[in-house]
């Protein structure tokens, strides 16, 4: 990937969020979100539990409509686009949901194969081959014919990852990919994510609480503050750790060992 060597800011913008306000009815969850994800970024959305990270993700993929503001993919205005254009755009996006969201009436292989059979002209045998390959990437070789209810939560998460990658999307959204994985699997997952960026040139947006993984792979991030109801930090998490003066951000990045000392749950 040619862009991979450049510093993030030199790569073209891929996702641009302008003045986004998210609300449920009259209840404003977050307001004035402004950030840019560059092509090839691994972008972390951080924040305490319940602050609205998954909700932000659902806005980015059009499952929820912004109360205010706009979302752009490159030059494409996603917010004002009509459903057909959106559908075109969504085909270039892969999503891993927080709870996996595998289709429960299909085997793992069928889950991965469905988008392939709908959107490509591959033959059934080829599709099966691709599905097997994607599943083996996430360490599920041999589980092709299992149903989602027959495997563990962590395995469902990984199968969801395989499905999100089925069409080799340009942008991948992961909602807490490593939640429910053991430390080793979660390290392997980090490596897989880096690998995906290198090999496919994909832009990857991750919602995560895992500090080691944030510092290991993310090269840009935002922090959502549940109390201020907006983002309070934007930048490389390593820089934020070194330079941020915001006490909530510091407390998050240092597991509560720095910043205000009052005992407080995030969220």
């Amino acid at each position, binding site marked *: 990937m040619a862009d991979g060597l450049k510093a993030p800011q030199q790569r073209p913008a891929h996702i641009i969020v302008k003045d986004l306000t998210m609300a449920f009815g009259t*209840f404003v969850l977050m307001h004035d979100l402004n950030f840019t994800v560059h092509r090839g970024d691994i972008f972390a959305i951080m924040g305490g539990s319940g602050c609205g990270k998954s909700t932000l993700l*659902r806005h980015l*993929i*059009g*499952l929820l409509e912004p109360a205010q503001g706009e979302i752009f993919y490159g030059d494409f205005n996603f917010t004002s686009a009509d459903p057909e254009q959106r*559908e*075109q755009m*969504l*085909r270039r*996006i892969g*999503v891993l*949901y*927080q*709870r*996996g*969201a*595998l*289709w*429960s*009436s299909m085997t793992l292989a069928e889950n991965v194969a*469905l*988008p392939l059979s*709908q*959107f490509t002209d591959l033959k059934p045998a080829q599709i099966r081959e691709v599905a097997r390959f994607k599943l083996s990437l996430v360490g599920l070789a041999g589980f092709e014919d299992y149903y989602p209810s027959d495997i563990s939560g962590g395995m469902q998460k990984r199968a969801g990852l395989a*499905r999100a990658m089925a069409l080799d999307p340009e942008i991948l959204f992961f909602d807490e990919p490593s939640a429910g994985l053991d430390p080793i699997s979660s390290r392997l997952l980090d490596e897989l994510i880096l690998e995906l960026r290198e090999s496919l040139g994909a832009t990857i947006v991750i919602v995560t609480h895992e500090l080691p993984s944030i510092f290991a792979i993310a090269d840009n991030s935002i922090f959502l503050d*549940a*109390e201020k109801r907006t983002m309070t930090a934007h930048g490389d998490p390593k820089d934020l750790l070194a330079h941020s003066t915001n006490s909530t951000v510091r407390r998050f990045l240092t597991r509560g060992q720095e910043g205000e000392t*009052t*005992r*407080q*749950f995030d*969220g």
Partner: protein
Amino acid sequence: MTTGNFSVWSESDTLLTVALRGDWQLRGHLPSPEAVIVEISTKPPAKLKFVAEELGKWDSGLLIFLKPIVDTCRNHQVEIELAKLPPGLSRLVQLSEAVPEREGARAIKRPEPSFLERIGRRAIAVATSFKRFSAFLGSLTLAFIKLASGKARFRKVDLFQVVQETGANALGIVSLISFLVGVILAFMGAVQLQQFGAAIYVADLVAIGMARDMGAMMTAIIMSGRTGAAFAARLGTMRITEEIDALTTMGISPLEFLVLPRLMALVLMMPILCLYSDLMGMLGGAAVGFTMLGIPLPLYYRETAAALTLTQIFGGVFKATVYGVLIAISGCFRGFQCGGSASAVGDAATQAVVTSIVLVVVACGMFAVIFKILGI
């Protein structure tokens, strides 16, 4: 073991003392802190002291007693001395203070709405529900156009599976109910007709009754309870587990993928089930005619064959097809509208059954009028 009790006294103008005695446990009797709170609020001392020399066993029960007192003290700027309490207890009190209540979290709880407000909210809810239903019908029509042009995305396997679930698997219950309905019709007719010595006309009554209305109606009611509810529960669960969202973001319309096969399956199966139900009902009638009225079976058969016309049979089958559409649409719509919890799935299933039975009965009434006008 003594039950928990306490006493309050003012040692001086500025110092109030609360002495705790006995056992304070969730399972035992817990005194109310009201007396102390009143004391503090009416004449706030500078300092409140707890003594616990005779305190026995204690658990969270004591904390429940202390917390409101401590809160009142905070509100009236009364200094509290916890030092005399057992160390574990004073730490727990401090901990419960340490995490302030999340601002805004409670603001969502609104006061009980007034009667007028409730009516207004209900009306708005009905209006939005109607709007959503119209939108659902609209998108469904578009999906059908796509189906007609061969571009709809769904899996044939799913269609076959729903056909099996709604069709073949329902035969048992349809047989039983329809046979019994035939028996009931025959009984009711027989009581009257026997008085005129016209018992043979029971065959006409059962045949026409089943073919025109009862066959379609009974199948529809069975399918509402069996299939409509299943559709709603299935789609509702898929909504909760984000499976529907996953389809949407894949660029696969859930309407095409999930609703079309279900609708088609019911449209295919309802006419067949209806015919089958007609047949079973007539068998029920024949059983009564043979055993109770002593009508020989060949005679009963001939009478039935003479009474039935193709128009009647097709009329019933047509009605059944329309009922099938209504059941599938209400089941799928309720499933799609499902909220985010397990109880919402139950509600969706209930609503699906209620909606489809109401729609079926209303349609049945409309058919009666229309068929009358058309002279069928």
